[in-house]
């Protein structure tokens, strides 16, 4: 029996042995050298199941015994470190010959790169910054830390760029509560609560389109420390100071839970802090809709205001500002979110400046100097409700926005010894609703978008008797002049599109139709006093216009997306029909072609390149094509002569990006060009400082080219961050006058660099900006100007939680033929931190080295201005802050 079993087992084993195929061969490099320890993996054709695997020997040979149960045809993958892997289909037969594989040498790149160092990590498309490792004791709020992070740039206005491009979304714990109003979080959320700042590269906000529609921009996601989640966070602060009574007070409260988030802020100050910047929206949705619907704060009329200097606001701003922001996001049961926001600002600010203008023409130069004393009382109240359902199978968003803007400004302007008092009032309101839904049927995606809005604008500008104005208007010298305008706009747009993915391709077609009804009522009046006015009595000063506008559009888009490469090509054709109900009735028709194209290519884990090319047409809002003369301000009066102005904007850019996560090093460089072609031009005639504009048909071009390099790095061993940005920009403009065309060219080289260094308990921050410009305005004015700015801050932390901070700013402004201006500003603060009671008490002395006025130079087109601004006095503040 035993013998039978033994013989049986032997036979079975022999049979089993015979039912295998020997798959053997050799693996060599392209230079003939055998490759050792290369993996040889045999997988079935239909499933990814591995049938057999092995490795090459030192001589580069391999031998695998594959069971016959494996299908005849299999995939073989040969892989070795430092070589490009190959995958090939092989027929397995009983007498399969020996194979010879040749691998090409290739630099080994980590797959879907995951590299980790002590502060920055990358996981697939997400770069994560460990904030608790990267922050310094000098960093109070999130924005302070963001400014140190390599690869991230924070603008003066709070905008954020990653690798040179604006971010497209901002999330806190994965939820979009603020709707791009992210400076509010960055300037109120304490850095001590943040665990990570994640950059989601090439972020597509609509989950349904994630694998289909490529994106060039990144999003930011803020991850909190576990101790900061699901609990009330915030702080209250009160500061009082001298001279006069200075107050800087505020309270903020926030909570971030998985199903609910809120962030509420109220601030008031008369110390020069411009907190209204915290409410700025950095991605305004579809710009064309808010623009066309006349929903943006729009000052058709104004009191002239000198271009403000790029100074810290608490050097130059005399304000009384209240800011309120209420934001809440609730996660609903069906995976949808409801976002509610209310924002309000109320301000009373004062600006005292002297504006010296030179306007260069072919044979003439207009020179005038003006002293400006302005009191502005702007206010704003906005409400927003947004319902979003953003899941893999469905996308639905409905946003309702209500905006109210108002202002009551008064000014005293002294021009060539002639004083003019002025009064400006604005009341503007708008309501809009935007709806978008993406649904899927089989593999087809259908998108429906609808936008509707109603807006009303009422403005008036009252000017006391003014010689230049009254001469041109042919009214008595003693007459007051009042310009009133009202614009009422109703707008709606409907777009429908369908798309279907074809492998890695996606093709979509979109049709749209929009209609706009607008009523424009301008009225230029004269009066013997500020109460009683009568129309000027000429048609050209008050033509009431009822305008209808219809646009039919067709867009086709082709996209292709793989892991490394994506491209998107869109072409749009719009048919615009405008009908003005005036006498005689005026109808215009235009074809408006446009295209948008971009491509991204990931060259390696460290290098990528992106290119864009766009052609867009921006046309005037119907009321801007007015046939009446409108007094925009007491120095500018003009008419559009019923001519619709078009801007044909063509732009191209290419940008290379580099990142090395191990070294915490980021770099981007590239070139972009913008060419704008206008179909009309506003010719300028002057009566002293009064400009009279008259629109005529004329093809003119403006262009600019921008070369930029940006590099940043964090040195972990030194705890130092360094960044440098350089750009060269050349812009060309033209200005028409009755005497002919004036060409202006301005070439500017700008260099900005920053250094932040933590040395023991001392934190040193240094930033420098340098800009030099060659200005060529007509043949008359050739100026070379240079602005150099240095900012130096030292923060020292002592034992016992004492912190001292010393800041110094230096400005050196020069322009050929003009005296060099040098300014120094200094701030000193001493803070005592009571960590246990969460109290901070600080004394702050601002504008230590006080200067009465600041002078800056400003050039645009054929105008060169030198402006002088009154500065805030030296001020001393005592502040108490309690965090919770």
């Amino acid at each position: 029996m035993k013998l039978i079993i033994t013989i049986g087992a032997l036979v079975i084993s022999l049979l089993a042995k015979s039912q295998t195929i020997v798959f053997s061969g050799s693996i060599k490099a392209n230079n003939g050298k055998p490759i050792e320890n290369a993996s040889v993996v045999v997988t079935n054709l239909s499933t990814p199941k591995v049938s057999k695997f092995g490795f090459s020997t030192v001589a580069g040979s391999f031998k695998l015994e594959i069971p016959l149960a494996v299908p005849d045809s299999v995939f073989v993958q040969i892989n070795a470190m430092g070589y490009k892997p190959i995958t090939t289909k092989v027929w397995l037969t009983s007498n399969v010959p020996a194979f010879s594989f040749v691998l090409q040498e290739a630099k080994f790149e980590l797959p879907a790169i995951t590299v980790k160092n002590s502060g920055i990590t990358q996981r697939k498309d997400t770069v994560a910054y460990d904030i608790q490792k990267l922050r310094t004791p000098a960093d109070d709020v999130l924005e302070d830390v963001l400014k140190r992070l390599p690869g991230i740039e924070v603008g003066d206005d709070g905008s954020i760029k990653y690798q040179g491009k604006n971010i497209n979304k901002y999330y806190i714990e994965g939820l979009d509560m603020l709707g791009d109003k992210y400076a509010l979080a960055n300037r109120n959320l304490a850095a001590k609560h943040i665990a990570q700042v994640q950059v989601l590269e090439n972020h597509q906000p609509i989950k349904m389109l994630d694998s289909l529609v490529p994106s060039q921009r990144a999003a930011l996601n803020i991850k909190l420390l576990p101790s900061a989640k699901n609990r009330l966070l915030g702080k209250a602060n009160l500061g009082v100071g001298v001279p006069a009574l200075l107050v800087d007070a505020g309270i903020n409260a926030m909570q971030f839970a998985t199903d609910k988030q809120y962030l509420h802020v109220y601030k008031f100050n008369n110390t020069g802090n411009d907190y209204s910047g915290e409410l700025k929206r950095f991605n305004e949705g579809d710009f064309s809709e808010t623009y066309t619907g006349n929903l943006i704060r729009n000052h058709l009329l104004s009191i002239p205001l000198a271009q403000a200097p790029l100074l810290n606001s608490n050097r130059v701003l005399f304000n009384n500002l209240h800011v309120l922001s209420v934001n809440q996001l609730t996660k609903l049961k069906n995976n949808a979110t409801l976002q509610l926001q209310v924002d309000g600002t109320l301000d009373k600010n004062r600006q005292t400046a002297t504006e010296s203008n030179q306007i260069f023409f072919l044979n003439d130069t207009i020179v005038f100097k003006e002293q400006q004393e302005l009191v502005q009382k702007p206010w704003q109240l906005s409400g927003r409700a947004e319902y979003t359902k953003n899941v893999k199978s469905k996308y639905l968003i409905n946003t309702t926005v209500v905006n109210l803007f108002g202002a009551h400004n008064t000014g005293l302007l002294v021009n060539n010894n002639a004083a003019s008092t002025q009064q400006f009032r604005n009341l503007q309101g708008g309501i809009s609703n935007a709806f978008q839904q993406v649904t899927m049927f089989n593999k087809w995606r259908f998108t429906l978008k609808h936008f509707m809005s109603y807006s009303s604008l009422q403005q008036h500008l009252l000017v006391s008797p003014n010689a230049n104005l009254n001469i041109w208007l042919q009214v008595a010298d003693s007459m007051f002049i009042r310009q009133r305008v009202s614009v009422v706009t109703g707008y709606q747009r409907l777009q429908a599109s369908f798309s279907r993915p074809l492998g890695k391709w996606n093709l979509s077609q979109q049709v749209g139709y929009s209609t706009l009804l607008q009523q424009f009522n301008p009225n230029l009046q004269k009066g013997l006093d500020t109460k009683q006015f009568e129309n000027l009595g000429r048609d050209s000063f008050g033509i009431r216009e009822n305008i209808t506008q219809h646009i039919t559009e067709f867009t086709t888009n082709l996209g292709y997306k793989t892991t490394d490469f994506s491209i998107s090509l869109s072409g749009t054709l719009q048919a615009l029909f405008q009908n003005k109900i005036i006498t005689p009735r005026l109808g215009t028709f235009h074809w408006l072609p446009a295209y948008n194209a971009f491509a991204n290519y990931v060259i390696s884990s460290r290098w990528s390149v992106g290119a864009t090319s766009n052609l867009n047409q921006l046309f005037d809002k119907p009321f801007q094509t007015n046939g009446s003369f409108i007094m925009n301000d007491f120095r500018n009066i003009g008419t559009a002569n019923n001519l619709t102005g078009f801007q044909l904007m063509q732009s191209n850019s290419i940008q290379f990006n580099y990142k090395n996560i191990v070294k915490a090093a980021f770099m981007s460089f590239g070139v972009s060009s913008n060419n704008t072609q206008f179909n009309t031009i506003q010719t300028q005639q002057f009566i002293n400082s009064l400009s009279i504009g008259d629109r005529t048909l004329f093809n003119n071009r403006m262009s600019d080219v921008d070369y930029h390099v940006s590099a940043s790095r964090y040195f972990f061993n030194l705890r130092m961050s360094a960044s440098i940005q350089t750009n060269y920009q050349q812009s060309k403009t033209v200005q028409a006058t009755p005497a002919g065309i004036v060409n202006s060219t301005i070439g500017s080289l700008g260099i900005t660099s920053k250094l932040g260094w933590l040395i023991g308990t001392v934190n040193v921050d240094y930033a420098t900006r340098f800009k030099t410009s060659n200005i060529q305005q007509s043949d008359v004015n050739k100026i070379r100007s240079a602005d150099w700015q240095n900012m130096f801050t030292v923060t020292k932390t002592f034992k016992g939680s004492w912190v001292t901070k010393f800041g110094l700013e230096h400005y050196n402004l020069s322009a050929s033929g003009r005296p060099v201006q040098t300014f120094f500003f200094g701030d000193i603060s001493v803070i005592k931190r009571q960590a246990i009671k969460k109290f901070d008490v600080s004394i702050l002395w601002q504008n230590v080295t006080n200067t009465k006025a600041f002078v800056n130079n400003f050039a645009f087109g054929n105008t060169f201005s030198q402006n002088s601004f009154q500065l805030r006095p030296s001020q001393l503040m005592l502040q108490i802050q309690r965090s919770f």
Partner: protein
Amino acid sequence: MIKANFMKCAVLTIIQALIVLSLFGQSQSSNNNALCIEYTFSHLTDTVNTSKVVTGKYCLSLLGTQTSYIATSTKTTDSLMTKMMDDPSGFTSLEQSFLQNSMAQKGTTERFYADLSNKKIAYFIPWVTGKIAIYYTLPEFDWQLTDSSKDIIGVRCTKATGYWKGRHYTAWYAPSIPSSAGPWKANGLPGLILSMYDSKNDVQWHAVQLYTPNITPDVSIPPKTEVVTKEQFEKMKQDFIKDPQGTMNTVNAANAANGNNSTTTITIKGDGKLRPKPPINNPIELP
């Protein structure tokens, strides 16, 4: 004046640019086929007392088909020791205290050097008489591949199961990283092993960092290492246990011949007899 300003700023920015950009250049010098992986390791050494868990961090360095597997603290100590020997004057007080700290850290001192092509692995032992290495054949884990996959530190990994020396292991390997290496003695999968644990979770290795090193990693046994057989090392151990001072005298004599007159004396507490450490009841390699 404008020119002077421009010059000042240009010098300043060029200095900063050099700081930033010169170090961009450094990052290009990494070796094509080199890779470092840091693993966390945990081992329940006593099944009776479950609080006895040895933990540590290990670094697996790859250079082609050669690997080294060294405790992270040992690696730091080694590099500081090398610096101290090469340039004593440039050795800062900070580095000195760092060295003392890292030498004082307790933890496993296991150190392996593997040659994946020749299927050899060297166990490195810092013995009293000097550095010793014993070569073994690389263990075979009898891996069975499965279709399961998941991401580990962002790298797609596939599951495999295997058995060696009394333990059933689960390993997650990265097919996209073509190396048959793994933590400890693990090897033989068609991709780098990023995570491995036994069926009882008594022994675990998990990758936490993966990076291309800036300098070529040292994957060879250290110089002046004596290669012995397992039997020879057993004899050396027995000789040392029998007569520790006799072994040290041999070392002292060899040092004196090389001009080093320092002598080492061994004092054994208790009855003066040296005894081998008691074996742990749950070793990684079960009998």
